[in-house]
Protein backbone atom coordinates (compact mmCIF):
# COMPACT_ATOMS: atom_id res chain seq x y z
CA UNK A 1 0.00 0.00 0.00
CA UNK A 2 2.74 2.44 1.00
CA UNK A 3 4.58 1.70 -2.22
CA UNK A 4 1.42 2.09 -4.20
CA UNK A 5 1.09 5.53 -2.71
CA UNK A 6 4.69 6.64 -3.06
CA UNK A 7 5.55 5.06 -6.41
CA UNK A 8 4.24 7.84 -8.67
CA UNK A 9 6.29 10.51 -6.92
CA UNK A 10 9.60 8.89 -7.84
CA UNK A 11 9.16 10.40 -11.26
CA UNK A 12 10.15 13.98 -11.69
CA UNK A 13 7.38 14.71 -14.16
CA UNK A 14 4.89 13.60 -11.50
CA UNK A 15 6.52 15.85 -8.91
CA UNK A 16 6.38 18.79 -11.30
CA UNK A 17 2.76 17.97 -12.07
CA UNK A 18 1.98 18.05 -8.35
CA UNK A 19 3.65 21.44 -7.94
CA UNK A 20 1.75 22.73 -10.93
CA UNK A 21 -1.48 21.43 -9.41
CA UNK A 22 -0.71 23.22 -6.15
CA UNK A 23 -0.16 26.53 -7.94
CA UNK A 24 -3.31 26.14 -10.00
CA UNK A 25 -5.27 25.27 -6.87
CA UNK A 26 -4.14 28.41 -5.06
CA UNK A 27 -4.71 30.83 -7.95
CA UNK A 28 -7.89 29.01 -8.98
CA UNK A 29 -9.49 29.14 -5.54
CA UNK A 30 -8.49 32.72 -4.71
CA UNK A 31 -9.78 34.11 -8.00
CA UNK A 32 -12.47 31.45 -8.22
CA UNK A 33 -14.08 32.68 -5.01
CA UNK A 34 -14.85 35.96 -6.80
CA UNK A 35 -15.79 34.16 -10.01
CA UNK A 36 -18.39 32.11 -8.16
CA UNK A 37 -19.92 34.91 -6.08
CA UNK A 38 -19.93 37.33 -9.00
CA UNK A 39 -21.09 34.86 -11.66
CA UNK A 40 -18.03 35.29 -13.89
CA UNK A 41 -17.81 31.69 -15.07
CA UNK A 42 -18.57 32.51 -18.69
CA UNK A 43 -16.02 35.30 -18.54
CA UNK A 44 -13.36 32.90 -17.25
CA UNK A 45 -14.15 30.47 -20.01
CA UNK A 46 -13.87 33.16 -22.68
CA UNK A 47 -10.63 34.49 -21.28
CA UNK A 48 -9.11 31.02 -21.25
CA UNK A 49 -10.10 30.39 -24.86
CA UNK A 50 -8.93 33.80 -25.99
CA UNK A 51 -5.51 33.25 -24.48
CA UNK A 52 -4.97 30.70 -27.22
CA UNK A 53 -4.78 33.57 -29.72
CA UNK A 54 -1.78 35.06 -27.93
CA UNK A 55 -0.14 31.69 -27.67
CA UNK A 56 -0.70 31.09 -31.38
CA UNK A 57 0.82 34.43 -32.37
CA UNK A 58 3.87 33.73 -30.24
CA UNK A 59 4.21 30.25 -31.69
CA UNK A 60 3.79 31.28 -35.33
CA UNK A 61 6.41 34.00 -34.93
CA UNK A 62 8.83 31.41 -33.59
CA UNK A 63 8.60 32.10 -29.86
CA UNK A 64 9.50 29.50 -27.26
CA UNK A 65 7.61 28.28 -24.22
CA UNK A 66 8.08 31.52 -22.31
CA UNK A 67 6.93 33.65 -25.24
CA UNK A 68 3.90 31.43 -25.73
CA UNK A 69 2.87 31.82 -22.11
CA UNK A 70 3.43 35.56 -22.17
CA UNK A 71 1.43 35.79 -25.39
CA UNK A 72 -1.37 33.90 -23.69
CA UNK A 73 -1.33 36.27 -20.72
CA UNK A 74 -1.43 39.32 -23.00
CA UNK A 75 -4.35 37.98 -25.04
CA UNK A 76 -6.24 36.99 -21.91
CA UNK A 77 -5.78 40.39 -20.28
CA UNK A 78 -6.73 42.10 -23.55
CA UNK A 79 -9.96 40.13 -23.63
CA UNK A 80 -10.76 40.99 -20.04
CA UNK A 81 -10.13 44.69 -20.56
CA UNK A 82 -11.99 44.75 -23.90
CA UNK A 83 -15.04 43.08 -22.39
CA UNK A 84 -15.18 45.67 -19.65
CA UNK A 85 -14.66 48.57 -22.06
CA UNK A 86 -17.05 47.27 -24.72
CA UNK A 87 -19.87 46.56 -22.31
CA UNK A 88 -19.63 50.07 -20.90
CA UNK A 89 -19.10 52.12 -24.04
CA UNK A 90 -21.26 50.18 -26.50
CA UNK A 91 -23.93 49.59 -23.86
CA UNK A 92 -23.86 45.88 -24.49
CA UNK A 93 -24.72 43.41 -21.80
CA UNK A 94 -21.50 42.01 -20.50
CA UNK A 95 -22.22 38.46 -21.64
CA UNK A 96 -22.85 39.72 -25.18
CA UNK A 97 -19.47 41.45 -25.16
CA UNK A 98 -17.90 38.27 -23.83
CA UNK A 99 -19.52 36.19 -26.55
CA UNK A 100 -18.23 38.51 -29.26
CA UNK A 101 -14.67 38.67 -28.00
CA UNK A 102 -14.58 34.97 -27.20
CA UNK A 103 -15.43 34.23 -30.83
CA UNK A 104 -13.08 36.85 -32.21
CA UNK A 105 -10.01 35.71 -30.29
CA UNK A 106 -10.63 31.99 -30.47
CA UNK A 107 -11.49 32.20 -34.17
CA UNK A 108 -8.32 34.15 -34.83
CA UNK A 109 -6.30 31.54 -32.95
CA UNK A 110 -7.71 28.64 -34.95
CA UNK A 111 -7.17 30.63 -38.15
CA UNK A 112 -3.49 31.09 -37.36
CA UNK A 113 -3.05 27.53 -36.28
CA UNK A 114 -4.70 26.18 -39.41
CA UNK A 115 -1.75 27.63 -41.38
CA UNK A 116 0.79 25.65 -39.42
CA UNK A 117 0.84 21.86 -39.41
CA UNK A 118 3.41 21.54 -36.66
CA UNK A 119 1.32 23.47 -34.23
CA UNK A 120 -1.37 20.81 -34.20
CA UNK A 121 0.46 18.85 -31.52
CA UNK A 122 1.01 21.85 -29.29
CA UNK A 123 -2.53 22.92 -29.97
CA UNK A 124 -3.66 19.68 -28.44
CA UNK A 125 -1.69 20.36 -25.29
CA UNK A 126 -3.23 23.80 -25.06
CA UNK A 127 -6.73 22.55 -25.49
CA UNK A 128 -6.71 19.53 -23.20
CA UNK A 129 -3.69 20.46 -21.12
CA UNK A 130 -0.43 18.64 -20.70
CA UNK A 131 0.26 18.48 -17.02
CA UNK A 132 2.72 15.63 -17.28
CA UNK A 133 4.74 17.67 -19.76
CA UNK A 134 5.14 20.66 -17.45
CA UNK A 135 8.75 21.82 -17.57
CA UNK A 136 10.70 23.49 -14.79
CA UNK A 137 10.54 26.68 -16.81
CA UNK A 138 6.75 26.40 -16.94
CA UNK A 139 6.68 25.91 -13.20
CA UNK A 140 8.67 29.07 -12.55
CA UNK A 141 6.38 31.02 -14.79
CA UNK A 142 3.25 29.60 -13.16
CA UNK A 143 4.77 30.33 -9.76
CA UNK A 144 5.52 33.93 -10.67
CA UNK A 145 1.99 34.43 -11.98
CA UNK A 146 0.53 32.86 -8.85
CA UNK A 147 2.55 35.21 -6.66
CA UNK A 148 1.29 38.16 -8.71
CA UNK A 149 -2.32 36.99 -8.40
CA UNK A 150 -1.98 36.48 -4.65
CA UNK A 151 -0.27 39.81 -4.07
CA UNK A 152 -2.85 41.75 -6.08
CA UNK A 153 -5.77 40.01 -4.41
CA UNK A 154 -4.35 40.54 -0.96
CA UNK A 155 -3.49 44.18 -1.54
CA UNK A 156 -6.79 45.12 -3.14
CA UNK A 157 -8.93 42.70 -1.14
CA UNK A 158 -11.13 45.42 0.35
CA UNK A 159 -11.77 47.04 -3.02
CA UNK A 160 -12.48 43.70 -4.67
CA UNK A 161 -14.85 42.66 -1.90
CA UNK A 162 -16.67 45.99 -1.69
CA UNK A 163 -17.05 46.30 -5.48
CA UNK A 164 -18.24 42.71 -5.84
CA UNK A 165 -20.73 43.06 -3.02
CA UNK A 166 -22.20 46.48 -3.71
CA UNK A 167 -20.79 48.39 -6.68
CA UNK A 168 -23.06 51.41 -6.20
CA UNK A 169 -22.03 52.03 -2.61
CA UNK A 170 -18.44 51.24 -3.48
CA UNK A 171 -18.53 53.97 -6.11
CA UNK A 172 -20.20 56.36 -3.66
CA UNK A 173 -17.42 55.65 -1.17
CA UNK A 174 -14.74 56.53 -3.67
CA UNK A 175 -13.70 53.06 -4.84
CA UNK A 176 -12.70 53.30 -8.53
CA UNK A 177 -15.14 50.54 -9.41
CA UNK A 178 -14.48 50.37 -13.15
CA UNK A 179 -10.78 49.98 -12.53
CA UNK A 180 -11.39 47.37 -9.85
CA UNK A 181 -13.72 45.43 -12.12
CA UNK A 182 -11.12 45.43 -14.89
CA UNK A 183 -8.56 44.37 -12.32
CA UNK A 184 -10.72 41.45 -11.28
CA UNK A 185 -11.14 40.37 -14.90
CA UNK A 186 -7.36 40.60 -15.27
CA UNK A 187 -6.94 38.35 -12.26
CA UNK A 188 -9.33 35.91 -13.89
CA UNK A 189 -7.19 36.09 -17.03
CA UNK A 190 -4.00 35.38 -15.08
CA UNK A 191 -5.59 32.49 -13.21
CA UNK A 192 -6.87 31.05 -16.47
CA UNK A 193 -3.39 31.15 -17.99
CA UNK A 194 -1.92 29.50 -14.90
CA UNK A 195 -4.55 26.79 -15.09
CA UNK A 196 -4.54 25.90 -18.76
CA UNK A 197 -1.15 24.20 -18.50
CA UNK A 198 -2.82 21.79 -16.15
CA UNK A 199 -6.21 21.05 -17.63
CA UNK A 200 -6.25 22.85 -21.00
CA UNK A 201 -8.28 25.82 -22.12
CA UNK A 202 -11.48 23.82 -22.38
CA UNK A 203 -11.51 22.81 -18.73
CA UNK A 204 -9.95 25.91 -17.16
CA UNK A 205 -13.35 27.05 -16.03
CA UNK A 206 -13.64 23.90 -13.94
CA UNK A 207 -10.56 24.79 -11.89
CA UNK A 208 -11.88 28.30 -11.29
CA UNK A 209 -15.43 27.31 -10.48
CA UNK A 210 -15.55 23.81 -8.97
CA UNK A 211 -13.22 24.16 -5.93
CA UNK A 212 -14.58 27.58 -4.93
CA UNK A 213 -18.17 26.45 -5.43
CA UNK A 214 -17.49 23.36 -3.32
CA UNK A 215 -16.02 25.52 -0.59
CA UNK A 216 -18.99 27.88 -0.88
CA UNK A 217 -21.25 25.02 0.14
CA UNK A 218 -19.23 24.35 3.28
CA UNK A 219 -18.20 27.80 4.54
CA UNK A 220 -19.71 31.26 4.26
CA UNK A 221 -16.82 33.70 4.38
CA UNK A 222 -14.66 34.76 1.45
CA UNK A 223 -11.25 34.03 3.02
CA UNK A 224 -12.48 30.59 4.11
CA UNK A 225 -13.87 29.89 0.65
CA UNK A 226 -10.42 30.66 -0.75
CA UNK A 227 -8.68 28.44 1.80
CA UNK A 228 -11.01 25.45 1.58
CA UNK A 229 -11.17 25.91 -2.20
CA UNK A 230 -7.40 25.58 -2.39
CA UNK A 231 -7.64 22.40 -0.34
CA UNK A 232 -10.26 20.96 -2.68
CA UNK A 233 -8.06 21.85 -5.65
CA UNK A 234 -4.99 20.16 -4.17
CA UNK A 235 -6.98 17.09 -3.22
CA UNK A 236 -8.42 16.89 -6.74
CA UNK A 237 -4.93 17.21 -8.22
CA UNK A 238 -3.54 14.42 -6.07
CA UNK A 239 -6.44 12.05 -6.74
CA UNK A 240 -6.42 12.98 -10.41
CA UNK A 241 -2.70 12.31 -10.74
CA UNK A 242 -3.00 8.89 -9.05
CA UNK A 243 -5.84 8.02 -11.41
CA UNK A 244 -3.79 9.10 -14.36
CA UNK A 245 -0.78 7.13 -13.17
CA UNK A 246 -2.56 3.87 -12.39
CA UNK A 247 -5.52 3.85 -14.77
CA UNK A 248 -3.78 5.46 -17.69
CA UNK A 249 -6.30 8.25 -18.19
CA UNK A 250 -5.51 11.85 -19.14
CA UNK A 251 -4.49 13.77 -15.99
CA UNK A 252 -6.32 17.04 -16.69
CA UNK A 253 -9.81 15.59 -17.08
CA UNK A 254 -9.16 13.23 -14.15
CA UNK A 255 -8.39 16.23 -11.92
CA UNK A 256 -11.46 18.08 -13.13
CA UNK A 257 -13.73 15.09 -12.62
CA UNK A 258 -12.39 14.64 -9.09
CA UNK A 259 -13.17 18.29 -8.36
CA UNK A 260 -16.68 17.79 -9.68
CA UNK A 261 -17.16 14.70 -7.51
CA UNK A 262 -15.94 16.72 -4.53
CA UNK A 263 -18.60 19.31 -5.32
CA UNK A 264 -21.36 16.72 -5.55
CA UNK A 265 -20.24 15.18 -2.25
CA UNK A 266 -20.17 18.55 -0.55
CA UNK A 267 -23.58 19.31 -2.00
CA UNK A 268 -25.03 16.11 -0.61
CA UNK A 269 -23.19 16.16 2.71
CA UNK A 270 -23.58 19.83 3.58
CA UNK A 271 -27.29 19.24 3.99
CA UNK A 272 -27.67 22.88 3.14
CA UNK A 273 -26.87 22.46 -0.47
CA UNK A 274 -29.05 25.47 -1.02
CA UNK A 275 -26.48 27.96 0.21
CA UNK A 276 -25.59 29.33 -3.20
CA UNK A 277 -27.85 27.63 -5.70
CA UNK A 278 -28.80 30.69 -7.69
CA UNK A 279 -25.29 31.83 -8.36
CA UNK A 280 -24.16 28.35 -9.04
CA UNK A 281 -26.96 27.83 -11.50
CA UNK A 282 -25.79 30.85 -13.48
CA UNK A 283 -22.19 29.76 -13.15
CA UNK A 284 -22.88 26.31 -14.54
CA UNK A 285 -25.28 27.32 -17.27
CA UNK A 286 -23.11 30.32 -18.18
Amino acid at each position, binding site marked *: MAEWLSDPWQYEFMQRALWAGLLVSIAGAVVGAFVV*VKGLAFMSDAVAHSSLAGAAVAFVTGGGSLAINIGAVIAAVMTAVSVSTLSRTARLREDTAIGLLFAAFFGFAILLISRSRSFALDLNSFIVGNILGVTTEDLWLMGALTVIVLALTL*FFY*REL*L*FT*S*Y*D*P*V*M*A*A*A*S*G*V*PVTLVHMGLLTLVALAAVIAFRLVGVVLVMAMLVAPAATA*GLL*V*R*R*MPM*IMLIGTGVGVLSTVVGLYSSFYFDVAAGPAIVMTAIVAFVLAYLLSGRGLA*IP*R*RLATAVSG
Partner: protein
Amino acid sequence: MDTPAVEVTGLTTGYRNHLAIEDITFTAASGRLVGVLGPNGSGKSTILKSLIGLLPPWYGTVRVFGQPPGRARNRMGYVPQAEEVDWDFPVSVRDVVAMGLYERKLGLDRFRRVKEAPIIHALERMGAAQLANRQVGELSGGQQRRVLLARALVRDPDLVLLDEPAAGLDATAEAELLRLLRTMADEGKCVMVATHDIQGVYDTFDDAVLVNRHLVSTGPVRASLTDHSLHQAFGRQLITLQGIDHHEHHVEQSHEVRGGQEHERTR
Protein backbone atom coordinates in the same frame (compact mmCIF):
# COMPACT_ATOMS: atom_id res chain seq x y z
CA MET B 1 -21.14 77.10 10.29
CA ASP B 2 -20.59 79.66 7.56
CA THR B 3 -20.54 77.25 4.64
CA PRO B 4 -23.83 75.38 4.48
CA ALA B 5 -23.59 71.58 4.59
CA VAL B 6 -25.21 71.39 1.17
CA GLU B 7 -25.32 74.05 -1.49
CA VAL B 8 -26.91 73.12 -4.80
CA THR B 9 -27.07 75.76 -7.51
CA GLY B 10 -28.89 75.41 -10.82
CA LEU B 11 -28.39 71.63 -10.81
CA THR B 12 -29.47 69.93 -14.00
CA THR B 13 -28.64 66.28 -14.47
CA GLY B 14 -29.93 62.90 -15.60
CA TYR B 15 -29.09 59.41 -16.75
CA ARG B 16 -27.19 58.97 -20.01
CA ASN B 17 -29.26 61.23 -22.25
CA HIS B 18 -32.41 61.22 -20.16
CA LEU B 19 -32.97 64.49 -18.34
CA ALA B 20 -34.13 63.84 -14.78
CA ILE B 21 -33.97 67.15 -12.89
CA GLU B 22 -33.63 70.70 -14.08
CA ASP B 23 -32.35 73.85 -12.45
CA ILE B 24 -32.58 72.76 -8.83
CA THR B 25 -31.31 75.27 -6.28
CA PHE B 26 -31.38 74.88 -2.51
CA THR B 27 -29.20 74.87 0.56
CA ALA B 28 -29.30 72.70 3.64
CA ALA B 29 -27.63 73.73 6.86
CA SER B 30 -25.88 71.73 9.54
CA GLY B 31 -28.09 70.94 12.48
CA ARG B 32 -31.19 70.59 10.32
CA LEU B 33 -33.40 67.65 9.52
CA VAL B 34 -34.38 68.10 5.88
CA GLY B 35 -37.10 66.21 4.01
CA VAL B 36 -36.85 65.77 0.24
CA LEU B 37 -40.39 65.41 -1.08
CA GLY B 38 -42.06 64.90 -4.42
CA PRO B 39 -44.09 62.37 -6.41
CA ASN B 40 -42.58 59.22 -7.93
CA GLY B 41 -40.00 60.03 -10.56
CA SER B 42 -39.71 63.65 -9.42
CA GLY B 43 -35.97 63.44 -8.83
CA LYS B 44 -35.58 62.86 -5.08
CA SER B 45 -33.16 59.97 -5.49
CA THR B 46 -31.40 61.81 -8.29
CA ILE B 47 -30.70 64.74 -5.98
CA LEU B 48 -29.25 62.48 -3.29
CA LYS B 49 -27.11 60.65 -5.86
CA SER B 50 -25.77 63.99 -7.05
CA LEU B 51 -24.89 64.94 -3.48
CA ILE B 52 -22.96 61.73 -2.84
CA GLY B 53 -21.21 62.12 -6.18
CA LEU B 54 -22.69 59.17 -8.06
CA LEU B 55 -24.14 61.44 -10.76
CA PRO B 56 -22.08 64.34 -12.11
CA PRO B 57 -24.01 67.55 -12.80
CA TRP B 58 -24.72 68.47 -16.41
CA TYR B 59 -25.15 72.07 -15.45
CA GLY B 60 -24.90 73.88 -12.16
CA THR B 61 -22.85 73.07 -9.09
CA VAL B 62 -23.09 70.84 -6.06
CA ARG B 63 -21.10 71.76 -2.96
CA VAL B 64 -20.88 69.72 0.20
CA PHE B 65 -19.24 71.64 3.03
CA GLY B 66 -18.00 73.97 0.33
CA GLN B 67 -16.33 71.21 -1.68
CA PRO B 68 -17.25 69.05 -4.65
CA PRO B 69 -18.83 65.77 -3.46
CA GLY B 70 -15.75 63.73 -4.33
CA ARG B 71 -13.70 65.66 -1.79
CA ALA B 72 -16.26 65.38 1.00
CA ARG B 73 -16.89 61.64 0.79
CA ASN B 74 -15.46 60.89 4.21
CA ARG B 75 -17.95 63.28 5.77
CA MET B 76 -21.02 61.73 4.15
CA GLY B 77 -23.09 58.65 4.86
CA TYR B 78 -25.62 57.38 2.33
CA VAL B 79 -28.26 54.69 2.11
CA PRO B 80 -29.58 54.17 -1.42
CA GLN B 81 -33.24 53.50 -2.10
CA ALA B 82 -33.47 50.22 -3.95
CA GLU B 83 -30.02 48.96 -3.20
CA GLU B 84 -28.87 46.40 -5.71
CA VAL B 85 -27.10 44.57 -2.96
CA ASP B 86 -26.47 40.91 -3.49
CA TRP B 87 -27.78 39.47 -0.24
CA ASP B 88 -26.46 35.99 -1.01
CA PHE B 89 -22.94 37.31 -0.96
CA PRO B 90 -20.82 35.50 1.63
CA VAL B 91 -20.10 38.38 4.01
CA SER B 92 -21.05 38.96 7.62
CA VAL B 93 -22.91 41.96 8.99
CA ARG B 94 -19.64 43.17 10.51
CA ASP B 95 -17.94 43.02 7.07
CA VAL B 96 -20.73 45.07 5.52
CA VAL B 97 -20.64 47.77 8.18
CA ALA B 98 -16.84 47.87 7.92
CA MET B 99 -17.23 48.80 4.24
CA GLY B 100 -18.60 52.13 5.46
CA LEU B 101 -15.14 52.90 6.81
CA TYR B 102 -13.49 52.54 3.42
CA GLU B 103 -10.82 55.07 2.66
CA ARG B 104 -9.08 55.49 -0.62
CA LYS B 105 -5.41 55.10 0.11
CA LEU B 106 -2.63 52.93 -1.18
CA GLY B 107 -0.29 52.81 1.81
CA LEU B 108 0.54 49.64 3.68
CA ASP B 109 -1.64 50.76 6.58
CA ARG B 110 -4.48 49.26 4.59
CA PHE B 111 -3.51 45.96 6.15
CA ARG B 112 -4.19 47.23 9.63
CA ARG B 113 -7.14 45.60 11.33
CA VAL B 114 -10.40 47.47 11.08
CA LYS B 115 -11.38 49.04 14.39
CA GLU B 116 -14.18 47.18 16.11
CA ALA B 117 -15.60 49.94 18.26
CA PRO B 118 -17.25 52.15 15.62
CA ILE B 119 -18.78 49.11 13.94
CA ILE B 120 -20.38 47.83 17.11
CA HIS B 121 -21.43 51.34 18.07
CA ALA B 122 -23.14 51.93 14.72
CA LEU B 123 -24.93 48.59 14.98
CA GLU B 124 -26.00 49.42 18.52
CA ARG B 125 -27.45 52.71 17.37
CA MET B 126 -29.54 50.75 14.89
CA GLY B 127 -30.49 48.18 17.53
CA ALA B 128 -28.70 45.47 15.59
CA ALA B 129 -25.59 44.76 17.66
CA GLN B 130 -26.62 41.17 18.21
CA LEU B 131 -26.51 40.60 14.43
CA ALA B 132 -22.80 41.43 14.05
CA ASN B 133 -21.64 37.92 13.29
CA ARG B 134 -24.57 36.81 11.16
CA GLN B 135 -24.39 36.36 7.41
CA VAL B 136 -26.22 39.19 5.67
CA GLY B 137 -28.19 36.65 3.64
CA GLU B 138 -29.79 35.28 6.81
CA LEU B 139 -31.40 38.58 7.80
CA SER B 140 -34.94 39.77 7.32
CA GLY B 141 -35.59 42.73 5.04
CA GLY B 142 -35.92 45.17 7.92
CA GLN B 143 -32.78 43.84 9.59
CA GLN B 144 -30.89 44.26 6.31
CA ARG B 145 -32.14 47.83 6.16
CA ARG B 146 -30.76 48.46 9.65
CA VAL B 147 -27.40 47.05 8.63
CA LEU B 148 -27.24 49.41 5.66
CA LEU B 149 -28.14 52.29 7.94
CA ALA B 150 -25.39 51.23 10.32
CA ARG B 151 -22.94 51.18 7.41
CA ALA B 152 -23.96 54.74 6.52
CA LEU B 153 -23.51 55.93 10.10
CA VAL B 154 -20.33 54.05 11.01
CA ARG B 155 -18.05 56.90 10.08
CA ASP B 156 -20.14 59.34 12.14
CA PRO B 157 -20.79 61.48 9.07
CA ASP B 158 -21.58 65.20 9.16
CA LEU B 159 -24.01 64.87 6.26
CA VAL B 160 -26.40 61.94 6.28
CA LEU B 161 -28.30 61.14 3.07
CA LEU B 162 -31.10 58.60 3.36
CA ASP B 163 -33.30 57.54 0.47
CA GLU B 164 -36.60 56.27 1.88
CA PRO B 165 -34.91 54.70 4.89
CA ALA B 166 -38.14 53.70 6.56
CA ALA B 167 -39.24 51.40 3.75
CA GLY B 168 -39.50 47.91 5.26
CA LEU B 169 -39.02 48.99 8.86
CA ASP B 170 -41.61 48.10 11.47
CA ALA B 171 -43.39 50.88 13.34
CA THR B 172 -41.06 50.73 16.34
CA ALA B 173 -37.95 50.74 14.20
CA GLU B 174 -39.29 53.65 12.18
CA ALA B 175 -39.99 55.69 15.29
CA GLU B 176 -36.55 54.83 16.65
CA LEU B 177 -34.95 55.81 13.37
CA LEU B 178 -36.74 59.14 13.41
CA ARG B 179 -35.59 59.78 16.96
CA LEU B 180 -32.03 58.89 15.97
CA LEU B 181 -32.15 61.26 12.99
CA ARG B 182 -33.48 64.01 15.23
CA THR B 183 -30.66 63.41 17.69
CA MET B 184 -28.07 63.54 14.94
CA ALA B 185 -29.47 66.81 13.65
CA ASP B 186 -29.42 68.23 17.15
CA GLU B 187 -25.79 67.14 17.43
CA GLY B 188 -25.10 69.48 14.53
CA LYS B 189 -25.22 67.15 11.57
CA CYS B 190 -27.21 67.80 8.43
CA VAL B 191 -29.67 64.96 7.82
CA MET B 192 -31.44 64.77 4.46
CA VAL B 193 -34.17 62.21 3.95
CA ALA B 194 -36.06 61.46 0.74
CA THR B 195 -39.49 60.24 1.78
CA HIS B 196 -43.16 60.05 0.88
CA ASP B 197 -44.30 60.78 4.42
CA ILE B 198 -45.26 64.41 3.88
CA GLN B 199 -47.21 64.64 7.13
CA GLY B 200 -44.24 63.24 9.02
CA VAL B 201 -41.93 65.82 7.50
CA TYR B 202 -44.39 68.59 8.24
CA ASP B 203 -44.71 67.52 11.85
CA THR B 204 -41.15 66.69 12.83
CA PHE B 205 -38.64 67.93 10.25
CA ASP B 206 -37.06 71.36 10.10
CA ASP B 207 -36.87 72.02 6.38
CA ALA B 208 -38.23 70.61 3.16
CA VAL B 209 -37.13 70.49 -0.45
CA LEU B 210 -40.20 69.93 -2.58
CA VAL B 211 -39.48 68.89 -6.16
CA ASN B 212 -41.20 67.82 -9.31
CA ARG B 213 -38.28 67.58 -11.72
CA HIS B 214 -38.00 71.31 -11.01
CA LEU B 215 -37.76 72.87 -7.61
CA VAL B 216 -41.22 73.66 -6.32
CA SER B 217 -40.39 75.10 -2.94
CA THR B 218 -37.79 74.94 -0.22
CA GLY B 219 -37.24 76.29 3.26
CA PRO B 220 -38.70 75.70 6.72
CA VAL B 221 -41.54 73.17 6.52
CA ARG B 222 -44.28 75.58 7.59
CA ALA B 223 -43.34 77.96 4.82
CA SER B 224 -42.48 75.53 2.05
CA LEU B 225 -45.24 72.94 2.46
CA THR B 226 -48.43 74.79 1.65
CA ASP B 227 -51.63 73.85 -0.11
CA HIS B 228 -50.36 75.72 -3.08
CA SER B 229 -46.89 74.19 -3.27
CA LEU B 230 -48.16 70.67 -2.64
CA HIS B 231 -50.73 71.12 -5.35
CA GLN B 232 -48.00 72.31 -7.67
CA ALA B 233 -45.81 69.35 -6.90
CA PHE B 234 -48.41 66.59 -6.79
CA GLY B 235 -50.89 68.01 -9.27
CA ARG B 236 -54.47 66.94 -8.92
CA GLN B 237 -53.80 64.47 -6.15
CA LEU B 238 -55.58 65.73 -3.11
CA ILE B 239 -53.11 66.12 -0.29
CA THR B 240 -54.21 67.81 2.87
CA LEU B 241 -51.86 68.22 5.73
CA GLN B 242 -53.24 68.21 9.21
CA GLY B 243 -52.44 71.30 11.19
CA ILE B 244 -51.77 73.43 8.16
CA ASP B 245 -52.99 77.00 8.45
CA HIS B 246 -54.39 77.76 5.04
CA HIS B 247 -54.74 81.48 5.46
CA GLU B 248 -51.39 82.20 6.95
CA HIS B 249 -49.58 80.32 4.26
CA HIS B 250 -51.33 82.00 1.41
CA VAL B 251 -49.53 85.09 2.52
CA GLU B 252 -46.31 83.33 3.28
CA GLN B 253 -45.45 81.47 0.11
CA SER B 254 -42.13 83.08 0.45
CA HIS B 255 -39.85 80.31 -0.63
CA GLU B 256 -41.92 78.96 -3.41
CA VAL B 257 -40.65 78.98 -6.88
CA ARG B 258 -43.18 79.70 -9.55
CA GLY B 259 -42.91 77.95 -12.88
CA GLY B 260 -39.97 76.10 -11.46
CA GLN B 261 -37.66 78.89 -12.51
CA GLU B 262 -37.86 82.20 -10.75
CA HIS B 263 -37.19 82.52 -7.09
CA GLU B 264 -39.40 84.90 -5.25
CA ARG B 265 -38.09 85.73 -1.90
CA THR B 266 -40.41 88.14 -0.16
CA ARG B 267 -39.96 87.38 3.43
